[in-house]
Every structure is written in C-alpha cells, then in structure tokens.
C-alpha cells in the first residue's frame, strides 16, 4: 500500500510539473531559510557549552546601586575568588582572571600583539580547555609560565615544538611555554591567544596588589558542587561586598556561564535578556517563513481539489476508508517536503559562505552530527505534515456520490480558508517589509547623527614601546618626537593624544564633585585624558572656553562636555572648580558631546584631564584629500622607525565605530533577505492560486469574451479579488508592524520617528508585486481562444 501510494504520489508530482515546481521551490526556500536561521541560532546557543561542567559554572556579576538604577557588570575585586572558593559552602571552585587585553608577546624577532589573559590555576580546572601539549595539572603554577593556543604557537614558533621555549612579554618579562591548547572555538565568551599565571599579572602590574574590595576589574568564575546549592550560594554572595567594605553599594550575584552570552543585559540587577531577543526574532522569522511555504502548499493542493476529487470518489467507491486516503495525501506531502529538503541542501551549501560573510561567523553543515540529522528529519516531517494536514483532511472529506456525479466543487468554505491563508501570508510579508525599512531608517538615522567629531580620516595609534610608553608610563619627549615626525611626513595635519580609543566605553567614576552637588547624587562620569590640539584634531567643537594649550600650565585644568554641564547645573562653568577624588581641578573649556559609547544613547557626562601619564593613544588627522593608502604607509613607516620592537598597529576610528552597529546591521540585513524570501514565496503561492482560478473560470471567461468582454474587464474580473486580499493583508499588517517596531525602537534613546513612508512603501510594493504576479497568468487567459474554453463537456 505504502509503496503504491509513493508511486502514485511521484506520478502525480511529475504530471503536474508546474505545481510541483512552485511547491517544491517554495518549500525548499522556506526550509533552507529556516535551517540557516536555526543553524545560526544553534551557534548562538552553543556559547560556553563546550566545557564539561558548564552547567555548574557561574559568572559573578557585580550589581552596583546608584540612585537611578542598578549597574551590572562581571567585574569583581581580585580577592573575590579566594573568598568565595574558601568561605562559601557549595562552591567547589572559584577562579579569577583578567579581562582579555592585547599585550606584546615576542619570540626573538617575531612579535605580535595578541589577546592575553592572566588567570589562576582554578581557571583551568573550571574551564577544561583541550591540552594538545604539556601538563594541565602543572600549567600556570610557575610565575613565568605561559600557555599558548595552537595558532598563537604556530605564528610564534612555526612548526617547532614550543614547549619550554622562552617568550618575552611586553619587552620585559621572560616566560616559558608550558603548554599548548587547542584554539578556542568562536563560541566562547572568554577569547584569548595566550594565558599567563596570576602571579605574572602581579609582577607586570605591581600596583594592583593593593587593590581592595573597591576596585572591580577581575572576572570571577564560580563552579558549584551541585546546582541545588544555587539559592544558598546566591544568598551568601549577596552581602559579600558589604562584609568587606563598609558602605559598599555593590552586591554580587551569580549568573549561569552558559547564559552569559545570550542573557547579558541587566536591568535592576536582574538579567532581562540581551542577544536572546535577537535570537528569538530569528527563530520567529525562521518558522514564519516555513509556515508561509506550508501555506503555499495547502493553498495549491486544495485549489487543485477538483482534479483530485474524482480520484477520491473512486477510491472511496472501491472501498477506501478515509484514513487510508489521509495517509495517501500525507505521503504525498511528506515526499514533496523531502524533495524540497534535497533542494534546500543545495541552496544552503550555495548560500552558506555568503551568510557567513554577512554574519562574520563560521557556520558549516555538519553532516557527521546526529543532532543535525535529527533536526533536519523532524523539520522535514513537520513541514510535510503541517503542509499536508489541511489538504489531506479536506480532500478526503469529499462524498463519492457527489464528485462522481460530476458535481461542481466550488466549496465555499475552502475558498474562504484559502483566502485567509493568502491574507496571512501577505500580512507576514508586509510586516517584514515595514520592519526592514524601519530598521534601516533607524540605522541610518543613528549613523548620520552627529557624533560630535569627524570620524573619517582619523587614525588611532596605540602608544607602546618607544612611541610614548617608555618605562611603562607616558613619556612627553617621545610623544613629541612621534608628533613631529608624523607632521613632518606631510600626510598628517594634526596629532593629539587620548587616554583610550575613541570608541571605548569605560573609564568611569562616580567620584565627581562640584559646587552645589547634593550628597545623595551619584552620577556616572566618563573620565579621559587628552593631549594638546585635542578638539582641533578630532574635529570637535568647543562651545565655551579653550582647549589645553602649550601656553598654559593645564595639569590642574579640565575640559568637560555639555552633558556634564547639564548634570552639574553650572550656569557659568568656566573657572569653576570641581574635583575627582582628591584632585581639585578648574574647568577651562566645554566641548560638544562626543560619542564614545553607544551611539543610541545620550552621551554620558565627561571630564577630560591633561595627564600625560595616562595617554595611551595617538590620534592622527590625515590631510584631507590625500591618498589614504599612501598616507597610511607613511604613518606606518614612521611608527616602525621610531618603535622597531613592536609590530605596526593603527586603526581607523570610523572602522571601529562601525562595529557598534553590528547587531542592528545584522538584524537589518537578515530581515531584508528573509523578508525578500517571504515575499517571493508568497508570490509563488499567489501565482499558483491565479493559475488555478483562471483554469477554473476558463469557461466563464470564455463566455464573457464571446459576449464581448474586453481585456480590462477580464483582467479586473480575475484580479480584483486578489488585490482586495492583498489590501486587507496590508491593513492587518500595518498595526502589527507598528506595534512591533514601536517596541523595538523603545530600546533606543535616539530613535527615528515612525513615519508613513515605510507603510506606503510596503503597500505599494506588495500591490505591485501582486499585480505583476497576477498579470503573468491573466495575460495567458486573455490570449487564449474562447472556443477552447467552451469545447469541453
């Protein structure tokens, strides 16, 4: 029975090649889109899950209360790990490690700046990295040990065995290679190229030894003996800051390691999502596209019901039960979805490289993985079943007497269901079009919004080695040498210095005081240090006063931004004395806000000092109009000459700035592509449906033509109904898209207003596409000879 059904299904599909093509095409695109998005979701989901005890591992978050909000970040005092590991019951291990930061590592001549992490031994026990060489038990014990990842070892040593070889860190410390671990998968929140013992950190940065419970810069990981201890440990952790530092505003919470990536947004000290929101959107889109393809199938199969009705009648008359008919139709749709899946494979393999480039990830179809096949097969079966269920139940319900008598099947119920399905398809398509447009509008709005300085043609050069950090501190002479040399090269118009990268968030303090500040007020200030010509070089604007100048002695003077003035409520800020900690400083200038953190948020108040010691970057303004690549080459020559021990490093500020839009850009691109697919599949469905309608109404049209109906009459007769459906879909889609986008936009402080344009565009686009689709078929009907249509019967 099954074999025969399969055979008949195949013959049926072959006989109606057009429908099969539309169906398989639609389903294949749907399945491929769904699989790609699910692949991406699986990638996001797999973060931090490659360690054997990941489920018992937690990250300690630090919730600091301010009057307005609770700020949460994973940075804790260095003493936290020891305290937690030894004092709190239920904790089996606790480790401390630093934030990955680029440090110079050299094997003789070969030197690279690579991400370095300092960590204690517990770190390796909590996160069981795969050791390729060396003993994991002994690693990180000695002060001068270092663990390399495989590719780091390769770039430093080539094919030599790196074990026990010596490396030089930051041109000072000597380190011995203890072990090599496999490269870290992308799906790891802690990314580094080499790992060094905690003791080496103390040696490299001696000041940190005195850091107490007030300084937060260490990542503490905690592993529980068992997850049943979670509540108990959480309760103990809560007061840990207060126990060590009276009046501390911080509380510690533990956040599952596996959720760190997806649930990283905190509000009021509680995890409220993060990347998971985007992932959820993608899952939603994935299934909606698949559903649209299924709806296509349903539409076309029920539309063809007249053709199948006779078969159903005969089968019933010769003794088939309804169940076996349902089975037959389900076999057909599952078969179709398997064919579609094969095609989807081809589509996926073709599009995956592009998709990867788009998302900056490395997804592969892992054919050896049983999970992959399970998902694949269940998805195919699911699709086949969903797509086939309605047609199966509908078609099998025909009464044999009626269909065998030649009863004309214009089941009104099935028509209205088909209409509902078409409307649903187009609602989704219209929603996606609107959302895509608004996402892009928002992106453009924020991108084009003034960020307070000219980011194009601005280069950052980290000050390392001879460039200005001679002896580990800012060295005025070497900085001046760099500046002179750069300007002498002729490609640079001005040079200044800054304490951090232009796009770095962080370096914040609560400890700002100003005249009239109330005791309770706690405001988060960004603090930076800048060199001479700062405002001029970055292309910013001074709204009051002056910037640092060689004519003055400015070490007790500061510049502030406009937000700071607003926060402090100073009427006439120039000359006012404010203080950070113990340092009393005088305001000499006010600059327009510059965006250093999120471009979507109001700039935080900022204070800029003139402390050479803290300068870490040179900011270089290229001569406008010059050739960029030759300019860059000249700059590289200068830095290489001045600083031969270090590899050349420089960044374009606007490149870095672009990275801030990655999430939104990704959402926009994906919504664009998959929205396009959704529209395309919907149109396939519409095409199929008109094909059917025209066929069914062939006789009517022929009669009308004989009676003298013109081309326009016939066209409007055929298409009016469908246009109405698309119109209705638009009307339903509008409020839906409006609600979704209002919610999405509400997360941004700077947001574009929702105008009528996206809606009008979606309406126009969907109607236009529908008209085009419909016209293809209608033209065929128009050209046909009415006699052919009347010959039948």
């Amino acid at each position, binding site marked *: 029975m099954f074999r*025969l059904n399969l055979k*008949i299904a195949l013959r049926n599909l072959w*006989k109606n090649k057009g429908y099969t093509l539309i169906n398989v095409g639609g389903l294949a695109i749907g399945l491929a889109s769904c699989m790609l998005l699910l692949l991406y979701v699986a990638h996001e989901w797999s973060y931090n899950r490659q360690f054997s005890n990941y489920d018992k591992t937690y990250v300690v978050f630090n919730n600091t209360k301010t009057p307005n909000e609770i700020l949460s970040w994973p940075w804790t005092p260095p003493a936290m790990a020891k305290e937690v590991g030894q004092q709190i019951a239920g904790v089996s291990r606790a480790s401390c490690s630093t934030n990955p930061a680029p440090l110079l590592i050299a094997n003789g001549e070969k030197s690279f700046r690579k991400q370095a992490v300092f960590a204690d031994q517990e770190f390796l026990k909590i996160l069981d990295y795969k050791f390729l060489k060396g003993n994991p038990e002994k690693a990180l014990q000695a002060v001068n040990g270092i663990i390399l990842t495989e590719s780091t070892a390769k770039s430093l040593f080539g094919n030599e065995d790196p074990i026990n070889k010596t490396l030089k860190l930051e041109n000072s410390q000597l380190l011995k290679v203890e072990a090599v671990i496999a490269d870290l998968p992308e799906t790891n929140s802690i990314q580094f190229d080499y790992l060094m013992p905690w003791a080496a950190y103390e040696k490299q940065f001696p000041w940190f030894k005195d850091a107490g419970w007030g300084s937060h810069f260490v990542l503490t990981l905690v592993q529980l003996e068992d997850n049943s201890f979670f509540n108990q440990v959480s309760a103990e952790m809560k007061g840990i800051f207060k126990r060590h530092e009276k009046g501390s505003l911080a509380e510690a919470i533990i956040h599952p390691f596996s959720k760190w990536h997806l649930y990283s947004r905190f509000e009021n000290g509680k995890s409220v999502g993060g990347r998971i929101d985007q992932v959820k959107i993608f899952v939603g889109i994935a299934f909606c596209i698949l559903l649209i393809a299924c709806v296509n199938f349903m539409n076309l199969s029920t539309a063809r019901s007249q053709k199948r009705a006779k078969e159903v*009648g005969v089968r019933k*008359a*010769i003794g088939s*039960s309804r169940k076996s008919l349902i089975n037959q139709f389900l076999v057909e749709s599952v078969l179709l979805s398997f064919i579609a899946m094969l095609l989807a494979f081809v589509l996926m393999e073709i599009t995956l490289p592009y998709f990867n480039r788009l998302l900056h990830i490395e997804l592969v179809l892992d054919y050896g993985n049983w999970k992959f096949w399970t998902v694949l097969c269940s998805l195919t079966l699911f699709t086949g079943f969903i797509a086939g269920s309605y047609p199966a139940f509908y078609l099998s319900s025909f009464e044999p007497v009626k269909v065998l*008598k030649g009863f004309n099947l214009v089941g009104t119920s099935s028509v209205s269901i088909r209409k509902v399905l078409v409307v649903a398809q187009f609602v989704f398509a219209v929603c996606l079009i609107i959302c895509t447009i608004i996402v892009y509008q928002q992106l453009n709005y924020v991108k084009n919004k003034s960020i307070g300085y000219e980011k194009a043609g601005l280069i950052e050069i980290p000050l390392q080695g001879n460039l200005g950090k001679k002896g580990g501190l800012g060295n005025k002479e070497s900085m001046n040498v760099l500046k002179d040399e750069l300007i002498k090269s002729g490609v640079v118009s001005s040079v200044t210095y800054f304490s951090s990268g232009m796009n770095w968030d962080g370096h914040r303090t609560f400890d700002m005081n100003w005249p009239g500040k109330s005791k309770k007020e706690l405001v988060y200030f960004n603090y930076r240090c800048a060199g001479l010509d700062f405002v001029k070089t970055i292309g910013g604007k001074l709204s009051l006063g002056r910037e640092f100048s060689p004519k003055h002695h400015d070490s007790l003077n500061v510049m502030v931004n406009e937000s700071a003035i607003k926060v402090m409520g100073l009427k006439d800020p120039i000359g006012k004395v404010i203080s950070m900690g113990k340092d009393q400083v005088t305001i000499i200038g006010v600059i327009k806000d510059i965006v250093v953190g999120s471009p979507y948020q109001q700039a935080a108040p900022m204070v800029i000092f003139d402390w050479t010691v803290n300068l870490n970057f040179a900011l270089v303004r290229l001569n406008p109009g010059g050739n960029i690549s030759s300019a860059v080459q000249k700059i590289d020559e200068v830095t290489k000459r001045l600083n031969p021990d270090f590899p050349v490093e420089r960044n374009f500020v606007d490149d870095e700035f672009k990275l801030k839009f990655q999430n939104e850009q990704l959402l926009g691109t994906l919504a664009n592509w998959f929205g396009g697919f959704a529209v395309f599949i919907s149109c396939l469905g519409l095409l199929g449906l008109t094909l059917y309608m025209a066929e069914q109404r062939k006789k009517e049209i022929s009669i009308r033509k004989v009676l003298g109906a013109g081309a326009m009459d016939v066209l409007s007769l055929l298409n009016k109904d469908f246009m109405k459906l698309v119109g209705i879909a638009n009307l339903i889609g509008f409020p839906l898209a409006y609600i979704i986008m209002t919610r999405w936009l509400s997360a941004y402080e700077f947001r574009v207003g929702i105008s009528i344009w996206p809606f009008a565009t979606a309406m126009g686009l969907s109607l236009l596409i529908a008209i085009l689709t419909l016209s293809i078929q209608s033209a065929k009907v128009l050209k046909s000879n009415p006699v052919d249509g009347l010959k039948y019967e």
Partner: protein
Amino acid sequence: MIELKNIEKYYANKGVKSYILRHVSTSIKQGEFVSIMGPSGAGKSTLLNILGMLEEPTYGAYEFMGEDVVSLNERKRIELYRNHIGFVFQAYHLIDEMTVAENIEAPLLYKKVSSAERKSRVADVLDRFNMVAKKDLFPNQLSGGQQQLVGIARALVAQPSIILADEPTGNLQSPQALQIMELFKKLNEEENITIIQVTHSEVNAAYGSRILHLLDGVIKEDLSLQQVI
C-alpha cells in the same frame, strides 16, 4: 439478498420537499440480473447509489444480506461493500495516475489481501479479460471500451457477490457496448453474480432477467423477462 422496504428520498428546499424516490419496495435475489429503466430524473441513479450504500435513504429500511444497512456505522458499511459490492461507472472512473494493473489491484489493497494473492488474482483477471499486454498502460492510453473493461475487471477482482453498474455502456459505441453486456450476462450466468444496472437502452435491458421501470421516483412496473418471453 436485497430487501428494500418503503424507501424514500427527498431533498428539502425552503420547506418544499422534492421527492426523488417514493415508496420503493422490492427484493432482489442472489443471481438476478436487474435493469433499472426510466426517463431522466426518474431516480434511477439515486436508487442504485442507495443500493450501493453511497447514499442514505431519507426514510425506509434496506437489508443487505440480512443486515440492516441504515443502522450500520460507517466502518461496518465500508466493510460490507468492500466484500460484496463492485461498482462500474458510466465514465469508467479509473484513477488516471495508476496503470491498468494498479487500478485493478486497488480494491484488493483496501481489503488487505496479501501481496501474493493480489498478484495472482490481478493476473487471473487480466488473463480473463485478455488485457495482459495492456497491464502497464495508463487509462488515457486505452479506448473507451477497454477502459470500461478495466472498470469491470476492477469491480470483479474483489470477488463481489453483486455488481452495480450505472449506465455502463453510456459512453460507448454499440459494438463495444454489446461486448460489455455479453460479459455481464456471462458473469451472471456462469458465476452467479447478481447484477443491477441502470440503463436507457432496451437492448441492454434485454440481457437481464428483470426490469424495474421507474417514473418520478415510483416503481411503475416490475417485469420478469421470462414472463415477457
């Protein structure tokens, strides 16, 4: 074998009952060859459909081989006609996507006959109807008469005790029609299969043993052909 008592069938339209069948009572015995005749709209096909359990009478009792059909549930009814009834249609109603052999095999599949037996029975029927050479053709590759032969073969393969034929020769030219009627007669005489056919043609009716004349839903005449002769 078949006992009809007071069968009525009507459609109510806006409160007005339009009768298709009225007070139809008759009994048909095993081995009879009955022709139902009458003008268009007399209710011939409806009567045949009721006999074939494809339609339910509005009122009345129908006993098939001693079982009250009206009160049977659908599963039992399907069971009953799977085993006892074979249909032959005017428009043949073969399944276009199936070959000749598959079309003939289909009822056996629903009867859950084993694969080996299916093969032998289909081969047997094909042989009897001289269609072995055509077994892999599709219906649209056959002439009308051949298609109807396949239709009859399909009805016979399940070894029914009764064949219901709704104008089996209506779409055929007369030489082919005669061939089909001969076949029916042979089946009736040699295998004692009860045959009930609806027909317009006196010639066809003459092959049978009994004629039921319907007019406006009422049996006007019930002739036994032996009597006529």
